[in-house]
């Protein structure tokens, strides 16, 4: 019975929240429902981690755990609601829960239409969690779409600036990616089993059958990789990201950069690479080149931007490029690094966007040329911003360092010279990152106060502090105790990367 | 001279052609309705004529015409109600003016 599976509740809770919100009468009830739901999700995620580690410690070394209770959805195409998690999904779920929690507090004073905002927000969360818990390709794809669509309204209605354009652009580009993805998934499905056996959508079964013909893999691998790569902001399909993030409201930026972009990396790995190892090995160099460009290119672009959100969006391009880059290295350490980078980037970008949202909410500008000396006026936000910046440029003790170093060391272990040279190219980004981060920090927080009107502004309120502190603690936790996370991930990545050994 | 089926079909055909022409060219809603009636009528004739000439022992064609006449009455009544209503709203029955619900 599926109800006995703890994973299903990651989808049920957001849906219940959705229902609860629909009944709400005023902002107080809306907040109460959102906080209760987000807290429940976080508690459930932590419980899941504990349970997962317990099972692993007890010697359960199946590739996926919590797989009981698959429900048939659509017989002709053999689509199931099949659940299951491995170490990688578990940490991604934990990440999502954290960001949803922080996101709720970051959008505490959402205006207008708070109820509707939170409803879409819940739907988005449903999609995100559903994606991570599914092991059925089609169900994954469905949840993927569920997560994408609310974005259009969230940006289009609650955004700022050129929001209609951005919302449209974001949705259309991601939908374009989905089209590739759909083709890829169907292609895989129709080659999912050796001749004569029933076809399947279940990822584990497809992987163990390993029946996709090599000639087809050459075609389907780019399809799926690009399809997910669009969401992972792979060069040259990244341009939705700067515009989209710049226009999105705070919590949406957080969730989008923090979790949604991770769906791209996760999908690339879970579907493209896991199911088509042959083509992954053969074609990796093309995408390595593209992602390597992403890494450096995004960082250079960020150097000359003047809008805070644009800077972060380009830095996301760079950091997410690093994720895909590491995935394509096809070894355990780099893969672990990629997942750590997803975690780290998710948390610190969410932190960044939260802080930018709070600053923007006060100064009503995001142009760094018009701000300065904010550290004197809002020390809490300033310190938070500096910490986020330091995490982003890879300060040891915060998450960015751990992730980047794992990626670099892992990538450099590759036997091929080409890969190692590209690793060095990617390493260069740490310097450029320092340049743009310090440039912003210097202009925005330090120096003299640019605009005398800013002197009257106030520092963070309690809900903003809570949101910020939650994320900072998470960032520091990964940074200080990386081996806890790294071992969970490594243990999940190892069996998959055996395909390439 | 004998009456052949063709002799009835050709006028019906012309009536139908006129209906098409009228429907496409007229701008007055009532005129369009009139064109519509012409087309309906042409079809009715065809039903009756085919029945009479090819299956004289049966009555399906005739009944079809019969019901079609009934339907035409209903349709016209409703259409005219709409026309009058539209006229009340915009003081006009010219279809070029009725673009409120376009796009």
């Amino acid at each position, binding site marked *: 019975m599926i109800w006995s599976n703890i994973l299903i509740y990651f989808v049920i809770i957001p849906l219940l929240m959705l229902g609860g919100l629909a009944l709400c009468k005023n902002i107080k009830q809306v907040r109460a429902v959102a906080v209760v739901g987000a807290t429940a999700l976080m508690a459930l995620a932590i419980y899941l981690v504990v349970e997962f580690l317990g099972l692993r410690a007890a010697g359960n070394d199946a590739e996926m755990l919590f797989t009981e209770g698959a429900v048939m959805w659509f017989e002709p195409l053999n689509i199931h609601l099949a659940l299951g998690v491995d170490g990688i999904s578990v940490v991604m779920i934990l990440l999502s829960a954290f960001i949803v929690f922080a996101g709720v507090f970051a959008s505490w004073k959402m205006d207008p239409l708070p109820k509707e905002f939170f409803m879409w927000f819940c739907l988005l969360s449903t999609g995100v969690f559903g994606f991570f818990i599914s092991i059925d390709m089609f169900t994954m794809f469905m949840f993927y779409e569920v997560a994408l669509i609310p974005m259009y309204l969230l940006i289009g209605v609650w955004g700022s600036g050129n929001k209609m354009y951005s919302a449209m652009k974001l949705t259309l580009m991601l939908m374009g990616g989905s089209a590739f993805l759909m083709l890829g998934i169907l292609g895989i499905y129709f080659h999912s089993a050796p001749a004569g056996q029933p076809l399947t959508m279940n990822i584990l079964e497809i992987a163990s059958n390993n029946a996709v013909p090599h000639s087809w893999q050459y075609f389907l691998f780019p399809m799926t990789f690009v399809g997910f790569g669009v969401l992972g902001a792979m060069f040259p399909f990244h341009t939705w990201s700067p515009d989209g993030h710049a226009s999105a409201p705070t919590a949406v930026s957080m969730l989008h950069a923090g979790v949604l972009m991770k769906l791209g990396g996760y999908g690339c790995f879970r579907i493209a690479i896991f199911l088509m190892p042959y083509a992954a090995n053969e074609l990796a160099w093309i995408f390595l080149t593209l992602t390597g460009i992403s890494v450096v290119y995004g960082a250079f672009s960020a150097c000359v931007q003047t809008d805070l959100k644009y800077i972060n969006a380009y830095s996301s391009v760079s950091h997410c490029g690093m994720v895909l880059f590491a995935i394509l290295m096809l070894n355990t350490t780099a893969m672990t690094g990629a997942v750590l980078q997803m975690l780290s980037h998710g948390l610190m970008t969410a932190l960044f966007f939260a802080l930018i949202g709070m600053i923007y909410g006060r100064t009503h500008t995001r142009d760094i040329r018009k701000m300065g000396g904010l550290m004197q006026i809002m020390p809490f936000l300033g310190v938070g911003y500096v910490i986020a910046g330091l995490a982003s440029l890879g300060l040891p003790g915060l998450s960015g360092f751990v992730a980047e170093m794992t990626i670099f060391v892992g990538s450099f272990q590759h036997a091929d010279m080409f890969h190692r040279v590209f690793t060095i190219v990617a390493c260069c980004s740490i310097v450029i990152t320092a340049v743009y981060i310090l440039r912003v920090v210097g202009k925005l927080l330090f120096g003299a106060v640019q605009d005398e009107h800013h002197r009257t502004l106030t520092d963070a309120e309690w809900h903003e502090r809570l949101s910020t502190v939650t994320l900072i603690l998470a960032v520091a936790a990964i940074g200080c105790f990386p081996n806890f996370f790294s071992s969970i991930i490594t243990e999940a990545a190892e069996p998959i990367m055996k395909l390439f050994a | *001279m*004998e*009456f*052949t*089926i063709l*002799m*009835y079909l*050709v*006028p*019906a*055909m*012309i*009536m*139908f*052609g*006129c*209906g*098409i*022409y*009228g429907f*496409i*060219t*007229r*701008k*007055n809603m*009532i*005129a369009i309705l*009139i*064109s519509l*009636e*012409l087309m309906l*009528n042409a079809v*009715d*004739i065809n039903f*009756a*004529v085919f029945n*009479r*000439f090819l299956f*004289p022992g*049966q*009555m399906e064609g*005739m*009944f079809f015409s019969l*019901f079609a*006449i*009934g*339907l*035409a*009455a*209903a*349709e*016209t*009544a*409703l259409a*005219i*109600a*709409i026309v*009058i*209503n539209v*006229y009340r709203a915009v003081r006009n029955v010219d279809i070029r003016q009725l673009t409120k619900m376009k796009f």
Partner: protein
Amino acid sequence: MESLGSIIAYFIIAIAIIVFSVLAVTSGKILRAATYLLFVLFATAGIYFQIGYEFLGAVQIAVYAGGIMVLFVFSILLTHKPGANAPRLENHKLWLGLSAAVLGAGVCLYSLFEYGSMMVSRMPDNFDINIHQIGQALLSTDKFGYLLPFEAISVLLLACIIGGVVIARKR
């Protein structure tokens, strides 16, 4: 060989149909167009009488010429100033209409004459259909009975009446 009277009647009917159809769709004055339509309807009824469907012809006159035309005339009078001329046709509209009508008619006529070997068959004589049979058929539930469509039509008419009232009612 038909009687001369019926031949003359046929030609009058055929010519009336053709001429008044054309006039009904080309006339600039809407009231005249309605009148031409009335003539076409009468002519149609004539065809029904000629081929022996007296009941159908009667219905045609009663419903169409009697009922529908009255509606037309009333609505025209309600919505038009007397004597108003329809605006001149734009050229492209004219060509649009003509092309569709001529093309349609052309294809139909071509196929009528090309495959019309059975089309030239005579009117069968063995024909006796009376009002009694029609009445039986209309209200029977047998194989060739029409009770269901009959009732359906009556419900439809009722719905139409209600609908008409609702739509046209003053708010």
